[in-house]
């Protein structure tokens, strides 16, 4: 019991301190890798045994929802940890030295902060800890120390903190709602859910609205998505993957905590409608910018906005769609790992982020090109990859809920985004090597990044088809917690 807590929280803290002090990169790399492995091992153990290592009714606790998102966090972190040494070796320029030194401590502190966010049950503490995740990302985003990355960091820091102010107001509103309950006003999720009936619906509704607006900046839901787009597209490969993969899912978890409380009160229908509106608007905004985009890293950032929009929309619909949404979160993080790793490498090797100036990708970078192509087919949802099955689940939810208007709008937007994405990425993959350009660049060798990305894409197939019980058990219990019957 205590060992898992140590592995989950102690290890990241220890490695943050250790990497901060030690100068040599190799030691830092092994420390981070060890932390990642330990963390992943603990998470899988907790998932398999499905137990909550923390004392009950304390400020910390691990419910099924938490354990599922913990898996997403630790899996993404482990992938980034595997790829980081390869990435850092390529960063030889002198101005990168300070950020190379800062890279590992920031990475470990991010793991610590995100784990804390997932395990906290108390809303107040949740706010404090989620602020920490933002701080731990600042040195990572500002890795390249260029003008754009500075602007990206500034915008990200400022807007997300501003968003979190509204989250705190939301939490205070929730606190006010418990005043009416008479029971001792604790802001712990389990207590709130237990005496939800006695909560004052007016303040729960205000709290939910404020929380949604507050956390959207971090999740990347429109209209608060611009800061997130700039940060993700200007961060280096592994950091962008971390942000798109785990940071957004962790922020989604915070929203789901609020949604869980709202679900047990009379505010349930309103919160579902609001989530659907926010989700649909995000998909629309993503479609606007994916249709005509010139820079493929921004395209991938908008694709993250789109997928989070889809998840929010499906969560709003509930039932089977909610199951699809949770699966979609997991598979989306797999896809984003592969996409951003490869985009980072392509950006480094071809020195360009414009889609039109990427030529002869398959000839000059055969491995990156192949995995990037595979990731493209993954992200647009072709079977047998995972996103296909999660999209089907969501469609089943929509058809079951008989929302024909939502279904129609969803399919039209999905089609527009499919056209935009394939127009851009197919041009990158297929455009031939112009005769003039020298093909002298030595063909790249197989690298651990390709292995990790390929593994991330392929592992979704057995999960989606075999539906392993250690994963679908917690998912089903989440649904029952939210009051949806399968």
């Amino acid at each position, binding site marked *: 019991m205590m060992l898992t807590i140590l592995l989950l929280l102690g290890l990241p803290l220890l490695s943050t301190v250790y990497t901060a002090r030690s100068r040599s990169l190799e030691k830092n790399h092994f420390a981070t890798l060890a932390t990642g492995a330990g963390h992943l091992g603990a998470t899988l153990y907790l998932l398999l045994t499905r137990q909550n290592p923390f004392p009950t009714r304390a400020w910390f606790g691990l419910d099924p929802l938490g354990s599922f998102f913990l898996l997403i966090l630790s899996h993404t972190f482990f992938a980034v940890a595997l790829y980081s040494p390869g990435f850092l070796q390529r960063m030889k320029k002198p101005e990168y030295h300070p950020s190379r030194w800062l890279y590992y401590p920031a990475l470990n502190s991010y793991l610590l902060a995100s784990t804390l966010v997932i395990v906290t049950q108390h809303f107040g503490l949740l706010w404090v800890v989620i602020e920490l995740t933002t701080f731990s990302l600042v040195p990572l985003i500002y890795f390249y120390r260029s003008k754009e990355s500075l602007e990206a960091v500034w915008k990200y820091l400022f807007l997300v903190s501003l968003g979190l102010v509204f989250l705190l107001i939301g939490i205070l509103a929730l606190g006010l709602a418990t005043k009416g309950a008479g029971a001792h006003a604790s802001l712990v999720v389990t207590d709130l859910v237990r005496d939800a009936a006695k909560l004052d619906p007016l303040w729960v509704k205000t709290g939910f609205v404020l929380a949604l607006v507050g956390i959207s900046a971090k999740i990347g839901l429109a209209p*608060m998505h611009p800061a997130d787009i700039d940060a993700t597209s200007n961060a280096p490969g592994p950091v962008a993957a971390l942000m798109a993969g785990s940071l957004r899912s962790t922020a989604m978890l915070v929203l789901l905590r609020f949604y869980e409380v709202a679900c047990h009160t009379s505010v349930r229908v309103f919160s579902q409608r*609001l989530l659907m509106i926010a989700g649909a608007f995000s998909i629309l905004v993503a479609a606007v910018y994916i249709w*005509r985009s010139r820079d493929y890293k921004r395209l991938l950032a908008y694709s993250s906005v789109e997928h989070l929009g889809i998840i929010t929309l499906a969560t709003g619909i509930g039932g089977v769609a909610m199951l699809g949404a949770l699966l979609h979160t997991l598979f989306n993080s797999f896809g984003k790992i592969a996409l951003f790793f490869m985009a980072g490498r392509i950006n480094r090797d071809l020195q360009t982020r414009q889609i039109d100036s990427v030529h002869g990708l398959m000839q000059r970078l055969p491995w990156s090109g192949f995995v990037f192509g595979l990731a493209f087919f993954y992200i647009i949802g072709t079977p047998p990859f995972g996103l296909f099955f999660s999209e089907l689940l969501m469609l089943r939810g929509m058809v079951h809920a008989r929302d024909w208007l939502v279904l129609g709008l969803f*399919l039209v937007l999905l089609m*527009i985004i499919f056209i935009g994405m394939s127009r851009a990425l197919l041009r990158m993959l297929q455009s031939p090597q112009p005769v003039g350009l020298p093909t002298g660049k030595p063909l790249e060798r197989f690298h651990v990044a390709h292995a990790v990305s390929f593994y991330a894409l392929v592992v979704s197939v057995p999960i989606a088809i075999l539906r392993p019980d250690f994963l679908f058990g917690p998912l089903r219990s989440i649904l029952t917690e939210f009051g949806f019957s399968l």
Partner: protein
Amino acid sequence: MIGFFILGLILHLAAMAIPAVVHDDRLLNRAVNLLNAFALACSLVFSLNSLLAYQPWEMRLALPMVGIIPLACDGITLFFLFTFQLLSLAGSVYAIGYLEQYIERGIRIRWHLVSFTLLILSMQLVVVVQHALAFLVAWELMAVSAYFCIVLEKQRPEVRRGGFWYFVATHASALFLYVFFILLHEKSGSWEFADYARQTGWDAGTLALLLVTGFVGFAIKAGFMPFHAWLPNAHPAAPAHVSGLLSAINIKAGIYGIVRMFMFFPIDRQAFGWALLAVALVSAIGGVWYALAQHEMKRLLAYHSVENIGIIGLGLAVAWLGRCISSPSLVALGLAGALLHTLNHAVFKALLFFGAGNVYLYAHTSEIEKLGGLAKVLPVTGAAFLIGAVSICGLPPLNGFISEFLIYKSFFQGGSLMGGHAPLALLVSAVSLAFVGGLAVACFTKLYGVVFLGENRSKTPPHGHEANSSIPVLVGLATLCGWIGFAPGAALRLVAPAVSEMSGLPAIRLGRELIAPMDELTPVFALLLVMTLLTLVVKIWAQKKAGVRLRETWGCGYQNVTARMQYSASSFAEELVKLGQPLLGLKLHWKPITHVLPEPRTFSSHGFDQVEQGLWIRLDRAIGRALRMLRWIQSGNIRHYVVYIFAALIIYLIIAFAFVW
């Protein structure tokens, strides 16, 4: 027997593994294609045998943890399986000769061969699998592998454009099919086709939605008129052996879907039948009329695929109407016509595309204005293309006529059986089928006359050779056209199992009502053949007696006739294309002669697809304009983003408290 089919599938998988081992392209090309051909031959043995002896085969593949995927080969599946395997066999043998040119040009064909084998494999899977999810997976697999087959020559931008059109169209059809199968799952609670057939008690709304989404999904893949825009862009972009397979069998997956859809809904609803008839008519007439205006060989043939899909649609519509008035003989007639035309179209369209491939190999262009007189240089291709052209126009001795004959009979029988306005509508569709036949004659005389007859129009006479491996394929397909034409009864036995399943007619009555009258056509055509041979003998004897001489063409006394004086494709079809002007879209590029001593003038006409331009390209631009209205969001100014946060907060609060939810 099933062993052969499983052996075939395993050999296909082996064929996909070869490129990893062999690295010399030339050897690779032969190895993969021959192995594919052998595998297809094996599975052909299975499908042909179980089709003729009619032993439907059932199996519920229980995969651990995944669940049970039912595989079945009933009459319909067996027929489509047979068609797919037959034409894939022809395609892979033809591919051996055709891919030589790419190897010489140094284009890597490893991935192409893998995706070509995957295409053949996935097409067979789509037809065999009876589980909705597995069907969708196979459907997308077929789409992705076909895409990679198309974009072999990545250098040319129109190839990439064609590939993109194909990719988007198949995904659109997949989206409709997702909704279709999920709606079915919602109603019947299971993913298996067998349960859908047993499902009864459809309420009107769901049934209408099911019919629309299902039909549109499969129609996009089949290429019915309003959704056909991707076909004339994608098929010419593909190399000849792939475009042959795409036109011959890939779009037939859409037809298979529609036929399978009929099995799901025993409820009769005439409105859908008439709608299908209307769409099929529009596709037939539009397809052939647009083909007339084309000057590029493969694009012309692609439009003809749209026309023939329309004809198949006519047969299916009559079959659906037959079921509505519950007369099994009409259903049998209509369906037999439609399915036989599916097989016929597969055979002669593949023949025509392989012929076009040979022309491309020889002249390195498929622009018909630059060709001419190729029959003298490519004798086998010329003769085979002629047989293909005659059969696609549905002219008597060959297979095109047989299926159109059946569809005509179904029109007339339907007209006499159904009262009210049905006779008028069915006669109008019979007449439009004749009108389509006339246009097809005009179109193919233009194509064959301009490409194969007369003198060569291009300044530098092309050099090149006939792909030697294509000769057996062309001859084989041509004889198949002739054999189905002369012995329609045998061909109908291939269709009989599917028809008897669908219409419920027992095999004996089916034999008496459908196959016997067609068998009587054989002596009629035999007599025609005998008379022709007799006349030929008399002619040769008479000309030997009277003597034969070769002289210049009689140009009414004009002496130095040049090759450019021949009728060109655009002038041949100009009047007819002008008739369809508003719909057809014809751009003439020429400057009128103004002053007395005019300098040289050029004239060229270019037919563009009004539906594609007017509907789809304009829709594309409209989406772009609509989306551009929201482009101000990412303005880059941080203060705007702060305003967005406050604005969103206010809007959400208004939604929270103004609307009562």
